[in-house]
């Protein structure tokens, strides 16, 4: 039975520890210093990312100290080989990706390929609408569709939805799909929610983030937003619902 670990190629122990410190620093950079982590995971993961970064940095620092102090060397020297597996170098790949490529949040490419979310039903017909701000109730796209699904009466009032533009394959009058991506724990499980929007005159390019204020209509049994006004916005820091 081959035992891989014993004969696995090794790199220096302090090099491995340095990789751990670097990985921890990347996590700090993503979650502590900036909000970039929200492109990849849920906003609620922030504390876990910071804690994981701290553990990595701590283990790495201990490893570096052990590799360079007399006591550490003495302890290590008694055992056979000391070093960490060369596989540790693979951990450099995501670090390089984060810094050099800085992958953006999922957008139209993912939205055109993943399946449509079956909405989680924490809403009932009696769930209250949030209060109006500046003449319209701000809802998420999932919330909007979810409330129509459970039978809430959304035909009274104006609603403000934010999402990015995707073409509507079933469009008859130049409707577009206002799209958001839903994730459960990380970008790997993204699913789309969409609401068709009618009544926009100069349709923005695919992928543009817009905020639409409109009223709800039902077309062919599916909720639509009849736009009253549309505004381009910046993509939000937390792009997932």
């Amino acid at each position, binding site marked *: 039975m081959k*035992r*891989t670990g014993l004969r696995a190629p090794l790199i220096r122990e302090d090099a491995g520890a340095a990789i751990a410190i670097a990985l921890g620093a990347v996590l700090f950079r993503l979650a502590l210093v900036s909000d970039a982590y929200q492109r990849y995971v849920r906003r609620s993961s922030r504390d876990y990312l910071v804690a994981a970064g701290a553990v990595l940095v701590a283990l790495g620092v201990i490893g570096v100290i052990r590799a360079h102090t007399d006591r550490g060397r003495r*302890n290590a020297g*008694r055992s056979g080989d000391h070093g960490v597996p060369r596989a540790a170098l693979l*951990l450099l790949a995501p670090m390089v990706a984060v810094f050099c490529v800085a992958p953006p949040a999922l957008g139209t490419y993912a939205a055109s390929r993943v399946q449509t979310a079956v909405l989680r039903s924490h809403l009932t017909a009696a769930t209250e609408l949030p209060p109006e701000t500046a003449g319209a109730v701000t809802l998420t796209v999932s919330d909007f569709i979810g409330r129509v699904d459970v039978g809430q009466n959304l035909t009274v009032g104006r609603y403000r939805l934010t999402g990015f533009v995707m073409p509507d394959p079933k469009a008859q009058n130049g409707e577009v799909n206002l799209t958001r991506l839903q994730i459960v*724990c990380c970008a790997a499980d993204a*699913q789309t929610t969409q609401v068709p929007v009618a009544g926009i005159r100069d349709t923005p390019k695919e992928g543009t983030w817009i905020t639409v204020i409109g009223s709800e209509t039902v077309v062919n049994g599916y909720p639509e937003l009849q736009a009253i006004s549309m505004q381009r916005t910046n993509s939000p820091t937390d792009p997932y619902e």
Partner: protein
Amino acid sequence: MVAGRFAASLATAIVTALIWTRIGGQGGMRPPNQDDHHDCEGSRWETFTGIALHDLLHAGGFLVVGASAAALLQTVVPHSLLGDGCSGDETAVATMAVLAVTLAICSQADAFVATGFTQFSLTARLVFLVVGPAVDVKLIVLQSATFGRAFAARFAPLTLVISVGCALLAARWLL
């Protein structure tokens, strides 16, 4: 469905373990000998942090490989392909099993993703939920890295077959 997933996953774990004790052979699942790396001279804390760093770097490195494979498959294969491939129940089950292995979705999210597969039967979706945690691309890479390629070459297909079988049985009796 919840009872089905629980029962099928539990059965998968037990059956796999029982079978592996027979066919795994001597040292079938013994990880590479850690004792040579750490002697008893250091304090327990030193040993702990040393092993923790070692395991983290070893497993983390190969996790990158597995995650890259899963990410590539997710990006390259559009989900719309599935809609066409589910004519019969057997095809649906096979498609879901393959999907569970290639998508490698974490267990926190796989139930939500499974609810989205509305064109598949409940049986096929139960197969997806049972096979996913048992064997997927990331796990296969990690198993090869930790226990050797020979181990993974036998263990992964074994878990796949057992998990599909247990899921089908649970579907027959509980769904």
